[in-house]
């Protein structure tokens, strides 16, 4: 009888220690980090697919269902996910811990003032900080803290996984920097202001955007100005996320020597970018080949 009781207690303690922390992230990139840090002690899902524009997400009840049963919701923050509060409220989950991963990020392009005449400017700064892999150490730290709060007994496990992943990422950062070093100072154009952190990290110069203002569709006049800029300014590449319309970038490319590069900003944005390191591998190698 005692043996049976011990067996049942052992089973119960095993099941308790392996209880999943249910995590939902806004982006698949964050889901990749959470999975690597949480290992088999987390169950991870995400909202926006890598080939979707994360700025514009329909407020679907199915997303609310994902959050209804979640313990943690990791978001980029800085009002990048303007749709998130409606999902959180709609989930009716009083215990959901919404973790803004941008808190300790050194923010770029923080405007002194914002009004709608400036386009879709983020008032807390440019939120695309995950495209500088050096920021992932900060993101991972926030994730470890949140996961530990949800499952304190697993703190060492989370920290160990995070350190192992960051070690691997650090090695890749050195590799990526070496790959891009010859192209420091190269001038590029981007469709949207998504690449500021990426360019800052690698010493690239962003000479302009295809959007006349953030979130505003390309206009013939602005496209014409960019054609002039490309001709005069030795622009080699126009970076466009896969979800944007290619018409204006291709028009610029046809009239100049610049090449259009479709680069994803998130995991799953193109075939082969199945995790963050693969995503950055794809972006770095594609860009290096174009700038060469």
């Amino acid at each position, binding site marked *: 009888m005692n043996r049976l009781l011990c067996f049942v207690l052992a089973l119960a303690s095993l099941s308790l220690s392996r209880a999943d922390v249910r995590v939902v992230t806004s982006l698949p990139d964050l889901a990749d980090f959470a999975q690597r840090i949480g290992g088999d002690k987390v169950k991870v899902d995400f909202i926006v697919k890598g080939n979707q524009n994360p700025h514009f997400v*329909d407020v679907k*009840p199915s997303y609310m269902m994902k959050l209804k049963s979640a313990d943690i919701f990791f978001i980029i923050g800085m009002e990048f996910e303007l749709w998130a509060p409606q999902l959180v409220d709609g989930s009716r989950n*009083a215990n959901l811990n919404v973790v803004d991963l941008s808190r300790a990020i050194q923010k770029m392009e923080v405007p002194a003032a914002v009004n709608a005449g400036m386009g879709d400017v983020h008032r807390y700064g440019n939120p695309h900080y995950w495209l500088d892999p050096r920021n992932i150490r900060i993101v991972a730290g926030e994730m470890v803290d949140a996961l530990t709060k949800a499952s304190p007994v697993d703190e060492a496990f989370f920290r160990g996984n995070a350190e192992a992943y960051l070690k691997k990422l650090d090695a890749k950062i050195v590799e990526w920097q070496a790959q891009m070093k010859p192209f420091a100072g190269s001038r590029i154009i981007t469709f949207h202001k998504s690449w500021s952190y990426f360019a800052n990290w690698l010493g690239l110069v962003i000479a302009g955007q295809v959007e006349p203002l953030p979130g505003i*569709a390309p206009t013939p006049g602005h496209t014409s100005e960019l054609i002039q800029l490309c001709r005069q300014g030795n622009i080699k590449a126009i970076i466009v996320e896969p*979800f944007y319309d290619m018409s204006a970038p291709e028009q610029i490319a046809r009239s100049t020597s610049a090449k259009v590069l479709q680069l994803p900003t998130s995991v799953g944005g193109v075939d082969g970018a199945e995790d963050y390191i693969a995503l950055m591998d794809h972006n770095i190698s594609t860009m290096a080949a174009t700038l060469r």
Partner: protein
Amino acid sequence: MHGLARFAPLLVVVAALSNLGLSQTTLNPDISVIPRFLIESNDGEKLSQGKREFSQPDFQFQELELVIQSYLNPFSRADVVLTLPGPDIEAASLGIEELYATVFRGLPLDLNLRFGKYRVEYGKLNLVHPHAWPFVTQPLSQTRFLGEEGLNDLGISASILLPTGDVYSRLTLDVLRGGTIEEAAGISDTSGSKPFYANSARLMGFFSLTDESDLEVGLSTLTGIHDPFHRDRFWYVNGDFKYKYKPSMYTALVLQGEYLYNTRSAAQDQAFQPFLDAAGNPEARTINSSGFYVYADYQFFKLYSLGARYDWSEAPYSNDDRTTGVSVFAGYYPVEETLGLRLEYQHFRTEAPGTATVVNTIVLQVLFSLGPHKAHPF
């Protein structure tokens, strides 16, 4: 009082909050102003004179919505929608379209409670403010059975998510002051009787069919007293669906429709003429009638939309009085929802015993949205 002057107290409050020098995001509610204007012409105005010609296009102020929204605390939020109705922009006075608080978190069973005056979750379109419709005019069945303002009443609402696994399904129950339906029929309650409550319920389910397409279906019911003098009751049953296919951020197709079935006992018709039996004595009758609309709206290049709607509706007090209509509409939204133009052509045919009338209408709607009013959920 001059209509616009009634904004003054609100503006004083907003200015005072701004002068505190504190973060607007933490103190001030979100405030949005959404006016709609119309230019309209139809060929039905001189039909009584035997002439069919389009009227001179008429500039009209349709309505202004002033939307104020904010969290009250971590568990609840408040929404206020003040409206200044057209067509006389100078003489109109500000009214309360919605004024309610919602407790969305922290209640047992994840219950969601709402109280105040609000657009009732009855069918699909009733929850959507007119500025967010893809067309200009309200579907005919909604106008006839719910009224021009839709089902919007004082009440208490409770909703619960049902345990249906990964499928989102929700049951919403409302107890309402009542009176909306009788007002829609033009009946003023001068009976002096106690209020007769109305009760509404909606069961909905949301299904993600693929990554790009979703379907929502709903079944609603509403019952109340439509004639306070005779204490006659009505029952509505409403089925609705919305399908959305969105393969990219530039393209989307929406198909939506609702069917409403009405049954009511009545002692008089909509013109307040009593029903009489063969001997000329007053009699109560049971009236069964219905209406539906269905529309398709196709968005392309993100900026443009094209759509069509079919309307068919009988009347609440008669199934001999029916109207069918076809509308085609186009929209242009140069910068998301901040500015919009909608052009609509309607062809409506109304039949009543002994008469048939056809009216064609062309209407251009212009609207803008000043402020952070959020997109409506799916």
